[in-house]
């Protein structure tokens, strides 16, 4: 660079403290022990589904929370991933380990196509375009009977094995999902911590200013869609091989809404939000089951309360709590709090 080779400026990234590492360790041990702690496979099943939803939610979060791109085709894209894996497995006998990357590639490519209109239309117009393209995907899944089995879907998808160990029940499958989710999370952190993530946020915050900074917005918009679809594809392959049966009605617009709800309850624009929301919502549904017909009413009210009072979701509640305790400790160090707030970079 021609201007000023920086000489003494120090990078300001923090290294996690010992306490944080201990916390990570504890969480890790609990995560590994879950199948043993769980009282029955059903509880593990709930967690497995939560893991699959977390993956989709991470993808949605990257596109919508970080890059500001309305991808409301996430449910149908999840279906593309699931169908890719299911077709490869039931027709050609290809095992899960090859289907996973294949689903990610196919879904990523279709996701990029779904993202192309984002170059022309914005906000609510983009919302209906992605909803519409999602519907088109779903209709294709429904009507290409020779390929997809039509409305009755595809049964008898084989569960994967791992070096001779069949992952043929929820407890065993749990570890597979855990590994993929952790990798997916770390990868998302890696991408978002990189200039790609900053470019995403720049595109979201101010489209024109981002272009003025030399950011090829076309590339980043389509990339955001593609990455979100890759996550949906991975989730689809896992789901197909866990469930062993898939049908088009699973991947309708309502599934997009479900993932969007969990992401926003957890915290849009925060990867931790995807994890929290992905765990919280299925568990909330379980708890609400006892009130039967009222559960969806309560659910709707809960969504409105979150949107109106804590638009940043659970992550924001946690941050507010942390901030208020920090403020009590030292009222003078407001700039530090502000810096911390910036570092967490939740919803502005």
């Amino acid at each position: 660079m021609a201007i000023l080779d920086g000489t003494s400026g120090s990078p300001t990234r923090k290294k996690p403290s010992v306490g944080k590492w201990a916390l990570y360790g504890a969480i890790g041990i609990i995560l590994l022990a879950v199948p043993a702690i769980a009282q029955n496979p059903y509880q593990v099943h709930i967690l497995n589904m939560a893991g699959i939803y977390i993956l989709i939610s991470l993808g949605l979060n990257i596109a919508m929370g970080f890059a500001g791109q309305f991808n409301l085709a996430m449910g149908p894209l999840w279906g593309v991933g699931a169908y890719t894996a299911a077709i490869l497995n039931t027709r050609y006998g290809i095992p899960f380990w090859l289907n996973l990357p294949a689903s990610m590639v196919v879904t990523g490519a279709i996701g990029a196509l779904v993202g192309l209109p984002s170059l022309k239309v914005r906000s609510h117009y983009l919302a209906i375009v992605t909803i519409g393209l999602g519907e088109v995907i779903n209709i294709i899944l429904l009507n290409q009977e020779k390929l997809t089995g039509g409305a009755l879907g595809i049964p008898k998808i084989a569960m994967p094995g791992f070096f001779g160990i069949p992952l043929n029940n929820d407890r065993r499958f749990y570890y597979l999902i855990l590994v993929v989710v952790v990798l997916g999370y770390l990868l998302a952190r890696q991408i978002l911590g990189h200039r790609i993530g900053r470019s995403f946020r720049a595109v979201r915050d101010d489209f024109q200013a981002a272009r003025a900074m030399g950011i090829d917005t076309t590339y980043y918009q389509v990339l955001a869609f593609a990455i979100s679809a890759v996550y949906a594809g991975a989730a689809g392959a896992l789901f197909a091989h866990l469930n062993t049966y898939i049908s088009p009605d699973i991947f309708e617009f309502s599934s997009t809404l479900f993932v969007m709800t969990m992401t926003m309850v957890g915290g849009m624009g925060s990867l931790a939000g995807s994890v929290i929301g992905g765990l919280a919502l299925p568990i909330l549904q379980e708890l609400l089951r006892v009130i039967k017909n009222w559960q969806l009413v309560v659910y709707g009210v809960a969504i409105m309360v979150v949107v109106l009072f804590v638009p940043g979701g659970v992550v924001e509640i946690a941050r507010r709590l942390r901030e208020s305790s920090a403020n009590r400790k030292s009222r003078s160090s407001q700039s530090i709090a502000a810096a911390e707030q910036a570092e967490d970079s939740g919803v502005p």
Partner: protein
Amino acid sequence: MKSKVLTFIMAASIAMTAVGQVAPIKIGLIGAMSGTNAVLGDWMKKGVTLAIEQQNAAGGINGAKIQLIVYDDAANPTVSVGLAQKVATEDKVMAVWATTNSSSALADIPVFTQYKIPQLTNGTFDAITTQGSSYIFRVCPAGPAYEDPLVDYLVKKGNTKFAIIGDTSAYGQGEIAYQTAALTRNHLSPLDTEQYGIDDKDFTGQLTKIFRAQPDVLLLASSEVAGGLVARQARQLGFTGTIAGGSAMGTPKFIETAGADVAEGVYFTSPYPGNQANAKTRAFAAAYKARWGEDPEVHGANTYDGMKMLILAMERAKPLTPENVAAEMHKIKGYQGLQGTFDYDARGEGIKATNLGIIKNGQLTYLEK
């Protein structure tokens, strides 16, 4: 609504009193209790509950009362699989009803096969019994059993020009396939086959296209409500030929939706010969009406049949384990139910015959064979 609440309280109190010295035998029921398919779940619950209550009143099974645990999957296969896990591993049921929706039933099969729990369904998709599971039991005939006799009869009456209209749901797509196959059996093919989405309400485009081919017979391949709407619009667009369909058209719901005038003369097939067919059905219909305040239809009847046979299998199973119950289910031969004679085979099919009926004066009436 009030009656539903009351029902729930009664069912709950019955379940409570059942908890005596002997632990109750738990039966799971997964079905659509909300959403557009809620009526199917409701019918299943009514038929099953009636049979259970009668058995409990007669002393249960070797002194143990039967307890029904109901879950709502809103016809969503993902939710259904989760609930299947729940009833299998948390509630540890003896047997389970899951579900009327063929796609949910299919989704649940691997779970109940894994946990070796007998799964009863009244879904009609034929592939349900070809999944290689010995724990799945269908309590009604499979799809082709409805469409073959219907088409055979109409062809015998001299009709050759058929057209099919159905929805894109699992049920609709299945029916279209069976109707097409039934026509092929008779060396015919449909003049036109049209489909519509389950949310569609106007079928002018499809019907206008179909009527260009001037069919004599319009075969409906859809559920009660959509079938009724299509029949109504077909008549309003001037179709004067025959309208016919599978068991969905043999329901009061179809007559209500289509309107009695439109429903008049519609042919249907049903395994259930009707409430007034014989002493058995009359007794069932009376008990059902006394319990639920409405007349039973085919779904109430086939789930009642299925629950009766399940009770039989549970009484015979020694010791009483889900695995033994399934084995006993397979041994059921010559059981006389409301729908006719059941002989279970290795795949889990119990009955194949259906009755041909026609709607006359707003009533379901059956033709002599």
